[in-house]
């Protein structure tokens, strides 16, 4: 038994390094999507202290809008632009209708409001686009669908081109976002707002503008995630469930840290794949991916309540 837990998995890993790489790659791809969703959470949380429960449904909604528009005969790239416009409209609406009237209310009320947004978007999505599964318009968007076959150490490693595209696009998105947050006036304002609401108001930063901006960025992230995940698993309301995977990522990475969200996402993606293949399937009968991340997060929380990368709480006495 001990042998099966502590020795055999590692022996297996070294015996077939190409397979190990394959497992890690699969983990990386799902990890990067977890990271993206977590990033959406972090941005909104930092700038408004709202835990945005609706991030998951925004992914579904963005993907549905894109596919739905294309089904109506809109060319793929035009549909992307239109979907972005829809996400912007959504951000403006949420700020006007939900956030603005609730300014200054306790956090839990705002959290409940985002649950309301979730249910509303589920309903709206079903009315407009119907509830059945759809296929992502991968090819129409020019995303390559072939695969790259590598042969490390004489073994076999298959990388799907759409996964490679997803990784590259996600990486570009993250780099762009970091540059935006650190180098621009608006980005600075977003970070300032996350530190101190009152002070941000006092220097003339407008909450409304920043909130719309942040929700719109979350919308863009949702669209990218939706396309990438939809390309792998189709577009349906079940997609929303992957958003819950962002919760352990956030616990691991801390609610406030962008780096934490990225590293946390990648770690969870890869660790859960490794665990499933080398421990879960042989020892526990498989299907460990549904709960592994949560258990891991729980263990981390026991030792570091602010998460691995949570912003250190600066306190002066």
């Amino acid at each position, binding site marked *: 038994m001990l042998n099966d837990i502590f020795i055999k998995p590692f022996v297996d890993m070294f015996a077939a390094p190409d397979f190990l790489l394959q497992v890690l790659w699969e983990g990386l791809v799902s990890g990067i999507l977890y990271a993206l969703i977590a990033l959406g959470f972090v941005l909104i949380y930092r700038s408004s202290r709202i835990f945005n429960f609706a991030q998951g449904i925004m992914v579904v909604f963005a993907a549905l809008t894109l596919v739905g528009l294309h089904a109506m005969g809109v060319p793929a790239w035009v549909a992307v632009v239109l979907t972005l416009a829809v996400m912007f409209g959504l951000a403006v609406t949420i700020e006007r209708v939900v956030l603005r009237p609730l*300014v*200054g209310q306790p956090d839990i009320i705002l959290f409940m409001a985002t649950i309301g947004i979730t249910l509303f978007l589920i309903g709206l999505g079903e009315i407009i686009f119907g509830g059945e599964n759809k296929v992502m318009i991968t090819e129409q968007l020019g995303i390559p669908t072939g695969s790259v076959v590598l042969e490390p150490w004489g073994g076999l490693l298959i990388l799907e081109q759409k996964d490679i595209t997803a990784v590259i696009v996600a990486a570009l998105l993250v780099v762009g976002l970091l540059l935006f947050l650190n180098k621009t*006036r608006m980005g*600075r*304002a977003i*970070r*300032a707002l*996350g*530190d*101190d*609401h*009152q*002070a*941000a*108001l*006092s*220097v*003339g*930063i*407008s909450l409304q503008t920043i909130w719309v901006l942040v929700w719109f960025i979350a919308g863009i992230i949702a669209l990218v995630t939706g396309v990438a995940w939809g390309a792998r698993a189709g577009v349906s309301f079940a997609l929303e469930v992957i958003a819950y995977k962002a919760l352990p990522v956030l616990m691991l990475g801390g609610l406030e840290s962008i780096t934490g969200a990225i590293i946390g996402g990648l770690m969870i993606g890869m660790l859960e794949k490794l665990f499933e293949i080398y421990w879960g399937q042989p020892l526990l009968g498989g299907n460990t991916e549904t709960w592994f991340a949560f258990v891991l997060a729980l263990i981390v929380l026991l030792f570091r309540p602010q998460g691995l990368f949570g*912003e250190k709480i*600066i306190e*002066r006495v």
Partner: protein
Amino acid sequence: MLDSAPAREPLLEVNNIEVIYNHVILVLKGVSLSVPKGGITALLGGNGAGKTTTLKAISNLLKSERGEVTKGSIKYKGETVQGRDPAELVRKGVIQVMEGRHCFQHLTVEENLMTGAYTRRDGKGAVEADLQMVYDYFPRLRERRKSQAGYTSGGEQQMCAIGRALMSRPEMILLDEPSMGLAPQLVEQIFEIVKSVNENEGLSFLLAEQNTNVALRFAHTGYILESGRVVMEGLAADLRENPDVKEFYLGMSDEGRKSFRDVRSYRRRKRWLA
């Protein structure tokens, strides 16, 4: 009054305002004051007198704390202030430095200063010039520009907060309790800088302070608030010589130190004052 010489137009006029928090708690019960252009006006009084509330009523930051002005008017350059966005006021030249400094803890000192320029549209060059000006007034900030504001000392944070306000190119700064929690030397230093900004840049200050002694030495005029009312006003020099102010706020009196026996008469006189 047609024959009297036209008085200098006040920059800010607060006329008999009442402020209520949460629809029930009456904090200001009719406060009036006026701030002349280019002057330092001190707003004095103890804890809970309503100094901060008055400043926030002017800068319109009350709304986010569920407070509202229910009576009276506030006019800046003759325009009504109420109902405007704080951001709009910053653009018009009124900015508040809040009590307790409120720097952005995770931003560097320089980034903090740059957020002050958020509302400006006059180009990078002008902002950069002002950044250098702020560093000239506060050389300490130049040394610490790359540090996270949360890790700087209380005095540095106060400088950072004032510098940040200066970056918005204001005409008037509402400065709330700059002396809070600082060593006397540092307080002196910060007031010196405020004074030189006032003289060199022609900026007006409305200064809320508990430290009556320092505030009256640097201010031109002063108002004394007590439980939401103005109980005394006048030139700072006159206030400093006023026996009641001396006794109640400066802790001095002609008869020397007060003993505990006199507390009763102190209370009586105080009631008469209000």
